[in-house]
């Protein structure tokens, strides 16, 4: 690791330590602990939940919802994006309907999903998948549509069939767009799962959050928020690793010298 990078890690650690120390110092004397809790109390709340193993249970529930919803929504979004991107008749036919659904805040569908699916885990998975679907679909669709016509023509001159064009040009060039869609979907997948739990649930991190609030347990609320943040971090990292693995040419683009 180059020196400057090591220093940057050190500076970041110092900044985080300073914020935590300040928080600990002002909580009580300057700001009532009821509002902002304090780092030591949050750490204690986390420790208690880890020891009782209830934390892992709730994390597991939320992770299952967010992850399954993300996967289902992403797969459906990519499939629909490629199909509509390649078949103009379908996209012309469906465009007004898709736009109508897109402008609807997906969270507003939660009550309907409760009616259909109850307050169990499936309602959150479907809610999450719906949110993720539109983001991934629109990006994939745009990606498939913005394929360079010159590249397609060049391949056709080489004798390429529709199938060749699809697999050698359209899909690879859409991959970058798909990942843009996946990356912005990560926080929304968690929104879907957690809002679903906040509305109606008896398990999961959203439930922990709502429960702690109900008991005026500020430390518990902050503890749940920290765990949610960690989960988002893990999901983000997974998408980034998958991206680097599937798009090795992108890292090359960062290394080259720029020309204007």
């Amino acid at each position: 690791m180059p020196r400057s990078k090591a220093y940057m890690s050190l500076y970041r650690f110092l900044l985080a330590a300073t914020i935590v120390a300040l928080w600990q110092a002002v909580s009580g004397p300057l700001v009532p602990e009821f509002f902002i809790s304090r780092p030591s109390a949050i750490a204690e709340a986390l420790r208690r939940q880890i020891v009782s193993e209830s934390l892992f249970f709730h994390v597991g529930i939320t992770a299952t919802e967010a992850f399954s919803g993300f996967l289902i929504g992403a797969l459906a979004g990519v499939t629909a994006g490629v199909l509509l991107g390649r078949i103009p008749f379908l996209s012309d036919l469906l465009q007004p309907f898709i736009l109508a659904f897109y402008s609807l805040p997906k969270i507003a569908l939660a009550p309907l999903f409760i009616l259909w699916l109850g307050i169990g885990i499936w309602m959150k998975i479907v809610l999450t998948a719906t949110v993720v679907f539109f983001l991934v679909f629109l990006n994939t669709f745009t990606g498939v549509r913005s394929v360079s016509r010159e590249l397609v023509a060049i391949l056709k001159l080489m004798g390429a069939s529709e199938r060749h064009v699809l697999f050698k040009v359209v899909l690879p060039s859409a991959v970058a767009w798909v990942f843009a869609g996946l990356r912005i979907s990560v926080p929304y997948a968690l929104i879907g799962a957690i809002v679903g739990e906040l509305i109606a649930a008896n398990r999961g991190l959203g439930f922990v959050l709502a429960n702690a609030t109900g008991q005026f347990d500020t430390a518990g609320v902050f503890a749940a928020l920290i765990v949610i943040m960690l989960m988002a971090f893990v999901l983000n990292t997974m998408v980034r690793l998958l991206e680097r693995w599937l798009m090795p040419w992108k890292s090359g683009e960062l290394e080259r010298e720029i020309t204007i």
Partner: protein
Amino acid sequence: MTEPLIAFRGVGKSFHVEGRTVEAVRDVTVDIRRGEFIALVGPSGCGKSTLLNMTAGLFPPSTGQVTYAGRVVAGINRATGYMTQNDHLLPWRTVAANIQVPLEIQGRPRGEMRDKVGSLMELVGLAGFERSYPAQLSGGMRKRAALARLLAYDPETLLLDEPFAALDAQLRLHMQIELLRLSRQLGKTVLFVTHDLDEAAALCDRCVVFSPRPGAIRRVLDSPLPRERDLLRLRRDPRWQEMSAELWDLITPMLTASHAEHH
């Protein structure tokens, strides 16, 4: 006299841009024989690329017709290969994998593809860069990769639209020598668009000179040079000097005319 390979018969093409009609070429009639190296020169925007596009079958002419090997070109013409100023390599494929694309389309066996890609990389001087991505290469190297890919699918006719415009002088000379050697050796027919009159005079068997838009043929010059020629010694060859000078004489009045038009 044998039948021409490519024949333009009264070819005209107009485009509709934002409600206006722009006439790109007008009444172009010229025959191109198999194995000929034809240079197309003329001021910018005189429709030289439009003629190439119609030969490739990317769009039909508005009037007249383009025939290829006796048949009217309708739709993509697979006997032609295209190379433009932009290299149009696939950014997600390594150099070797890019050159391999046309061989994959032809469904060649794996071993044959590897051998052919290897020898082509050698030919264009890219050996050792097999695993690089286009974004990691210089403009000149990308251009050479695009040429190797063009040679990999071995089209009968090469449509080259200022292929060497972005290269430095030495690399350009090197590529010109290779192109001439290969096209003679493999019996290729070449349509070569360029702004560089010295380059046109050096490479062509015949040079078609276009007038400003709408492009129409002003003159067709036969090259006084033999088909086998040494590009390295051309500078001192009076025949080349004379042809180049003649091209300059034809083009310069058009440039000053269009210059005056702009002011």
